[in-house]
């Protein structure tokens, strides 16, 4: 057992975990942040994507101990109070989700995609970048629309800041 200290969604947290504990299980089982999901166990599906120090990472592929001292953001931490993150709003407005299970990972990956491409995105790029996130419900059509829509919204939001 080890004590892992890190920052999650802006709050300092500490948890006593087995050394083999994965970050996703630290989040779900110890911190009750159940928005981050496990869909495959082999780092293929992306339902577990969170941000570590601002970068999208599959939290089923990171030991909790490796995240010690890091700044972790989960799906629960991206809205500002009642104000949804533009990516969350775009997923809702474009019907980019159905059962909702892949959605948190999709949104976290998509935010990272927009950040890395600086809002200059096209459909082909979004599709290629989403290769690591599997959705079984939407056929991706509306997810792609949502990401492109959010890229525009995030650009506007950034310009306003």
């Amino acid at each position: 057992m080890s004590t892992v200290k890190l920052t999650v969604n802006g709050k300092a947290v500490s948890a006593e975990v087995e050394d083999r504990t994965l970050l996703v299980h630290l989040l779900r089982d110890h911190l009750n942040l159940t928005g981050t999901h496990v869909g495959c166990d082999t780092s293929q599906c992306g339902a577990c994507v969170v941000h570590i120090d601002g970068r999208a990472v599959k939290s089923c592929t990171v030991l909790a101990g490796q995240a010690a001292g890091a700044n972790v953001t989960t799906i629960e931490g991206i809205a500002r109070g009642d104000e949804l993150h533009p990516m969350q709003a775009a997923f809702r407005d474009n019907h980019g989700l159905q059962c909702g299970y892949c959605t948190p990972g999709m949104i976290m990956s998509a935010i990272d995609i927009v950040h890395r491409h600086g809002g200059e995105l096209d459909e082909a790029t979004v599709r290629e970048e989403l290769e690591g996130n599997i959705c079984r419900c939407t056929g991706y059509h509306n997810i792609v629309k949502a990401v492109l829509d959010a890229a525009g919204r995030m650009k506007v939001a950034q310009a306003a800041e």
Partner: protein
Amino acid sequence: MGMEGIGASVVRKEDKRFITGKGRYVDDIKMVGMTYAHFIRSPHAHAKVKSIDSSAAEAMPGVVAVLTGKQIVDDKVGNLICGWAITSKDGSPMKMGAWPAMAPETVRFVGQAVAVVIADSKNLARDAAEAVVVEYEELPAVADMPSALKPGAPQLHPEAPGNVVYDWHIGDEAAVGAAFSKAAHVVSLELTNNRLAPNAMEPRAAIADYDAAEEHFTLYTTSQNPHVARLVLSAFYNIAPEHKLRVIAPDVGGGFGSKIFIYPEEMVALWASKKVGRPVKWTGDRTEAFLTDAHGRDHISKAEMAFDADHKMLGLRVKTHANFGAYMSLFSSSVPTYLYATLLSGQYNIPAIYAEVMGVYTNTTPVDAYRGAGRPEASYLLERLVETAARQFKMDPAELRRKNFITQFPHQTPVIMAYDTGDFNASLDAAMKAIDYAGFPARKAAAKAQGKLRGIGLSCYIEACGIAPSKAVGSLGAGVGLWESAEIRVNPVGTIEVLTGSHSHGQGHETTFCQLIAERLGVPISQVSIVHGDTDKVQFGMGTYGSRSAAVGLTAILKAMEKVEAKAKKIAAHALEASEGDIVIENGEFKVTGTDKSIALPMVALAAYTAHNLPDGMEPGLKESAFYDPTNFTFPAGTYICELEVDEATGKTSFVNFVAADDFGRLINPMIVEGQVHGGLVQGIGQALLEHAIYDSNGQPVTASFMDYAMPRADDVPSFKLSHTTTLCPGNPLGVKGCGEAGAIGASAAVINAITDAIGNNKLEMPATPDRVWHAIHG
């Protein structure tokens, strides 16, 4: 149509919790004192269980129990059932072997559970499972149907000689024989419908909690139909009587059929919870999903079509072998029979049809309904056959279809179904226009100049949805009725709760069902909530599958709504001192027509509950329920056209365009309908190009993770152009047909027809991987 009524693309009410990480799926739930189950599963496809030594595991700290198949059988937990009785052509009932929840003696597929470890944590349960020693005696296995049907093949169940579950048929063999004897042309095709793994993104999970004082169980489970689960667990598995078993299906992360069935893991969790006196949680991992979630499809078929000299269809003869895996899953028997062969007429006027279906056991994961369930297999077979015929006749495939379309309704097919309405020319026209079909030859030539092989493929599908008239399915062997129930509770201040037996696991019922209430009463959907997925709240329901929630579930809500409105109008008329017949409902108000007198819904509701001034003899309250049993199936139909290019050097396909023109009758929420189509199309495209659940000759699964099984990803598929044509379904008052499965039913034939058109070789099986396509081009 109001802003939130029928036909409005209202943004979904349920989305907020999903996009903020506040969804509540089974694995998100924790209970005090909860234990964790880990199953010990057979690594062999066929073996005797010689011994299980759990002593070392039981001695480990934190291990609560190790329970075996022998114990669950000794405790008289029932064997898994198959709920649809099929009779073979010789009149004999289908032949089934017993399926205990954990195998006491013999395992028949890789992944079948033999024991379970219950421990204080997930990791402890896994560690202890490693310490359980199971000794097996391997038996010869059969992994595919040709091997299983060979004389002398290893036998799975003594009850099913030759590994044959049933040998069933439908239609008029003599009439088909006569049609072929006078045929000017005969077109034939042999094809395989590849086995698929359903892969809802949320793995199955269950939490069982036994209350010893009340002798009462609660089960949280990933189910599409919690009431059916309770019924089966009570009536057949001897878990508990219905009033002592509450089944809750909270947020469920996709189903696609795979979460209809009641699986061994839920049964074991319930049984174990009573045995250990603590809540038991099981959460499957992805490999367990590949090993144990019922697979889909897996047919081998031979089809022949007879045409007259004018290329009119005369008769269709089909022989299909359907792989059931090692055991008969809950509705498996109905899938390749009444959900498949009854759709073999497609959109065509075929005077005579005869189909034979042999159900076969193999040492593989059980096979059951997966999105479309039988109808994709029928559609794929027929649409490839028609395309093959067009090429043989050197005719435009659209024209050959058009020549044979059913144009008069109602239309009785030779295989049970009575199509109520449709306009197949309209959807074909819409799709051809959307893809600029007329311009294709020029585009093909231009592509050729660029060194690319371009092809176009059509698929004109029909499906039977709105499952189903209870009397009809009962006469065909179904063990349940397929009606739906609803209850509407208008609260004293006028907010409304709608309780439904339908279950939403992505379909958006929390929005679309509210839209009906908004349409009828003119109230905002924010004042309405949908209650589903809990047997303690909703009295009964048959759940969600077979594209039935709008046609059957929503119609039940409408029937209850009509009763609410009738009573509310009486109350309003009494309060307004008007005649009941003069009351109209507009924008949440009950108005006396032609006057300015009105009373708002909250006041009517309050009057119903205060009961100070109700019409003489009226009961207080404003709550009504209804059961709705459909009178016929519904028949969504449409045309999909795929245009793609094949790289001759690599065999890789690239989509150029994919259009869909569907007739779903009335659309409640077009945005949600289109989302359903997108998802279905990608499952159909996945089957056509990527997905295949493969076993080696010993029955070892080769594709048991997302590393090996090719799920469609965002860069594998195109965006789609959708359109709708409309013939209202006459069978239900809303005129809806259902949209959940269409994409998966129609898409795969369009893709394969396009590839075979591009490469000029019709001999191609799914999935059409680059390797297969390359070989089809280069031999």
